[in-house]
């Protein structure tokens, strides 16, 4: 092979290298953040405490579907929900699948422990405080996709000393109201139930979030996708 051929091949190789580099840079230029962060709020007020088993189902479902790099936290809503003591468990799963599996087991144990120890329901339900707590957590995680699951009847009953009249940052957060239980008063006046849902939807959407209602746990997959 003469020198001309070598030069020719070298040029071709350089052109190919340049194209590959350009494609690689293009692929790396705007990587989509694939991480997910989810926050579960469980209402333990008197009217909703009987539905706590749904929290186990939901947390197990999320644990099974979250992967390495994803984050999950679970907290309860009581008289005053915007505190660290409300957080039952939180975890950001390790990049190694084997370690992530261990973390999931630990998370599951913490949730099971809480459900086992729970006995006294709260008198009030500070849902806004819980949402604020979740919002802070989700903003802190800065994941590509953020989910907030609320297991509650969405009937907020704030103690008189709490001030919750403030905006909640829910930018790009998918808020999923799960198992919104109809209370006795709702049976008397269904309009109250509908108004409550509409109020929360408007509140979420006004704060930049997306609203979704899943009353059937079997349809959780659609919300998650």
């Amino acid at each position, binding site marked *: 092979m003469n020198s001309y051929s070598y030069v020719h091949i070298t040029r071709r190789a350089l052109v190919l290298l340049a194209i590959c580099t350009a494609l690689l840079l293009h692929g790396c230029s705007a990587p989509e953040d694939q*991480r997910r962060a989810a926050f579960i709020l469980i209402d333990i007020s008197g009217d909703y405490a009987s539905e706590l088993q749904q929290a186990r189902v939901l947390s*197990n479902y999320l644990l099974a579907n979250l992967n390495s*790099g994803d984050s999950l936290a679970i907290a309860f809503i009581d008289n005053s929900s915007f505190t660290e003591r409300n957080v039952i468990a939180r975890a950001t799963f390790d990049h*190694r699948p084997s370690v992530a*599996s261990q973390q999931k087991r630990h998370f599951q144990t913490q949730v099971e422990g809480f459900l086992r120890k729970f006995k006294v329901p709260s008198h009030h339900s500070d849902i806004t405080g819980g949402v604020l707590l979740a919002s802070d957590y989700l903003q802190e995680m800065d994941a590509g996709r953020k989910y907030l699951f609320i297991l509650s009847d969405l009937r907020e009953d704030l103690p008189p000393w709490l001030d919750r009249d403030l905006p909640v940052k829910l930018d790009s957060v998918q808020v999923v109201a799960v198992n919104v239980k109809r209370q006795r008063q709702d049976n008397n006046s269904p309009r109250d139930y509908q108004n409550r849902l509409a109020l929360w939807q408007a509140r979420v959407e006004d704060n930049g979030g997306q609203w979704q209602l899943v009353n059937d746990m079997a349809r959780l997959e659609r919300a998650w996708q």
Partner: protein
Amino acid sequence: MLTEIFHIWSDSPALSLAIWLVISITLLYAGRPHGHQLLRSTGRAIYTSLRLVATSIRQLEHRVQERNRDVLLAMGRDAAEKSIEREFQRINTLVDRDLSQYPSLHRKLADTLQKIQDDYHQASGDVLLPPAWSEVMDTISALPTSGDPAVVKVLENIQDAVESSHQQSFKAYQKSANERHKILHAMQPEWRTLNSTMDKVEALLGGLDERTKVIDRHMADYESLRKAEDKAVNALTASSLTQFFIASLVLVIAVFGGIINFHLIALPMSEMVGGASYIGSVRTSDVAALVIIMVEITMGLFLLEALQITRLFPVIGSLDDTMRKRMAIAAFTILVIFASIEASLAYMRDLLALDREALAQSLAGATVAQAQFRWIPSVGQLVLGFILPFALAFVGIPLESFVHSLRTVLGLLLLVVLRTVRLSVRALGGLAHHLSTMLISLYDLLIMIPLSIERAVKWYRKTSVQKIPGDKGDADAAIEEHTGLSADPGTGPGTDVATAHTNRRKTRRSRSSTDDSELDELPLNVSVGKA
């Protein structure tokens, strides 16, 4: 707007339509020669242009065909040269292996022959001839015994002496014959040795003869290729297509093997490079698994190149033998290392899957079941992880066939495309030609009323001229009848157009002066048949 224009003549739609029709027909009749000319020239222009395009495509098609032929012949020559070279190498091996022993074989043969010759000489020495003694004995026995007793006694003594000598000679003869038989018996293994040696030589020469015939056949093919015969080109084309399909099939199988390999190591790779990082929208662990598979395939290619099984990289082929051997060892070593890594990853995948399954069961609230014979898939994945890289390493062989045959297949595909385009262009040209003819007829159909009036007027003039012979109109009618041309060129709707028609009609064969002559059209001076 259009409605206003439509009703410009009258508010009655029917009346407006009638007026517009009259105006349109009049205008179309007045512009009939120009309209015909426009349609005809447009059709001809499109037809000629498309025909030109078709001719260009045909030339390109010829060039591609020639190029394909050259490529095929070059590949065929290369393959034939390699085959002949390989046959010569086989003959060389045969000669080195078998004919190198020929001197010792020859020596053995010569020794055997010498020994047989010696034995033969020993067996053919001077011996007593018993038949002569028997004649003497018969003569003595036949002598008369009734004569002188002294003579008789002498004769008896002689007879006894002769008999004694005969007995001794006979014994000596028997002894000699026995010795000769022994010698001849001892020659038998020598003959057998000689026979087996000659069989060996025959087998050797037979093998060489077969190789020579194979070389003759290859040389005949090579000669055919050098002469660029169509038969050889057709055979090479068929061979290339067969190679292409076989190589494609094997490559598809290899791709499936690669996919299985990928799934075998993608999950455990996330333990090494992390399962949460992404390159673009693809997991880094997936990319790493793909890279490992690609590196394995590359090492396989290098190994096959270094062993000169494939010839995809001329640089490797031109290396000296020592360097190639080292390269082959290096490639094989790397391949073994990667295969070991893959085997361990495959085993790890099984462990991770087991752990994940247990977690899923735990999350679902079910008790974790202990599966029996769980070690079988574990060992299976371990072995598969070790074997698959070596299987993928052989992908270089079908890849080489695919690359080589792809040139031929692409050339054939290009030919098919060019031929299709050419035929389409030609059909389009023909369609444009016929469309122009059809539009001319349609044009005349629209103005059929004035054309009918014109025909009637002409017919009237013709009949009136025939009734008044010797009139000036007779001459004009005669001219019109024979040439289809008006005697007074200035009487037409346009003198220039009429002159142009006259010139054109002069070049035409005379035709009958029927009314159909008004619908005449210029024949296209192009051939539609062969391009």
